[in-house]
């Protein structure tokens, strides 16, 4: 899922300073799962915003709504009848949702309320960790299901580097060395021959380095 964390309250209050009536818009997908921008977080931030503005002597009307998916034009369309009554939309979705709103409603200011972080998975309750960098050319089949792009600090393809000590990364003892994990898993799988094979320099065109990416499925076109 896409993970996010709420922006600091001070930054949020500054970003809504020019507005007196906003729509605080949550999303029922990834940001709900990572407790950053779902219905519950919309209610919490809504209350905090009303209170924060009252304390400044500048009350602000905050309406709350959570869409099924903010990154999907189909769901974003439902705002069309009511959006004109607001000064701005304050989106608690990831950057994809914010931009979908901005694209559909070009004259409406859209302010992000969360910082979109990474594509990750839940490690334990309340802990999410990066697992995928969306590089567009998955190598997990060769690396024991552990991604060197997302989980190695240097994103190297023939690790580990000299900074790996006792299974930990040189940047912090709290960070596992991805290549140690890869080695351990390949041993477990009886696939250590994959580790011995030198991987070619990656073609980064499939990642962000080839410019903004799109997927076009002509078989799905209406």
């Amino acid at each position, binding site marked *: 899922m896409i993970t996010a964390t709420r922006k600091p309250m001070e930054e949020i209050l500054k970003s809504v300073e020019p507005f007196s009536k906003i729509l605080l818009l949550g999303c029922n997908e990834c940001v709900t799962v990572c407790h950053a921008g779902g219905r519950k977080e919309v209610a919490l931030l809504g209350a905090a915003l009303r209170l924060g503005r009252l304390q400044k002597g500048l009350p602000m009307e905050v309406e709350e709504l959570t869409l099924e998916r903010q990154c999907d034009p189909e769901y974003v369309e439902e705002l069309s009848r009511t959006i004109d009554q607001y000064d701005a939309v304050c989106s608690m979705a990831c950057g994809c949702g914010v931009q979908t709103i901005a694209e559909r409603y070009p004259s409406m200011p859209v302010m992000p309320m969360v910082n979109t972080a990474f594509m990750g998975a839940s490690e334990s309750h309340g802990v999410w960790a990066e697992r995928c960098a969306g590089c567009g050319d998955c190598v997990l089949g060769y690396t024991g299901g552990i991604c060197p792009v997302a989980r190695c600090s240097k994103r190297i393809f023939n690790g580990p580097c000299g900074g790996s000590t006792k299974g930990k990364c040189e940047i912090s003892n709290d960070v596992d060395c991805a290549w140690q994990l890869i080695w351990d898993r390949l041993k477990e799988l009886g696939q250590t021959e994959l580790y011995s094979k030198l991987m070619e*320099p*990656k*073609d*980064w*065109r499939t*990642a962000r*380095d*080839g*410019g903004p990416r799109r997927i076009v499925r002509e078989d799905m076109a209406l």
Partner: protein
Amino acid sequence: MAFAKKLKSKDFCYLAEMETPKGVDLSAFVNNADRLKGRVDAVLVPDLSHAVMRLSALAGALMLKDLGLETIVSFSCRDRNRLAMQGDLLAAHVLGLPNVMATEGEALELGDQPGAKAVQDLSPAEFLAAAKGLCDGRDMGGRELQGPPSFVLGAAIGPWTDAASAASRAAEARQAVEMGASFLIAPPVFSLPDFAAFAQELGDSGAMLMGSVLLLKSVGMARYLNENMPGVNVDEDTIRRLRGASDRPAEAVKIAAETVQGLKEYCNGALLVTAGWEDRLPDILELATR
């Protein structure tokens, strides 16, 4: 350095661009450089331009310096992070190559190793700020340097396609001057009136404005540029003139020289870009300075 003095004198500057070789055979590079001695104020050495791997600009510039030519070293923001950029800026100073500028760098997709990873850690504007910071004795991390360098900073102006984008480019150029640029290099000029309008829009920025003059090596090149290079419009008269010439390379040289002469009315210098025909540079300069 003579180039810095020339910038202050406001006399018309003659610059030439020289690509480094793809390999270590420097014979053609050295031959062409030898023929430029005493004819140009500085040679601009691009940095892996068009995203094509070749000898580094710093090494090329050092070779030219050893041959007695002053250089402007270009730094591509595409290929270096801020550490490498600052480290190479310090290198430029100690190697006696104080004239520096940055470009964003063309997209890797357009080059000969399109699978490479782009860096783009700094923009050219941030490069200027970093270079200025180094001159003031501090790196981007705020740490004090053991001896600050000094540079003559320049900036490239991006292409414009209409009056609105020309105004934006002029604003960017003025910002670059505020950040320390003392010379500005505009994109290839194929229409003097269009360039004149830009120069007017820019006004007196406080920096020396140089127009680029790209040698039109063929009719095909002119057509290609018209179709693919933003802001380029080689007019049909020029294309007809090139097509009808009995000696097309000589005609191309004449066209370039005429553009240089025309630029003298509107700016402070010309950068000659011959794109592989560096052996023609002396001919263009000969005609342009008559």
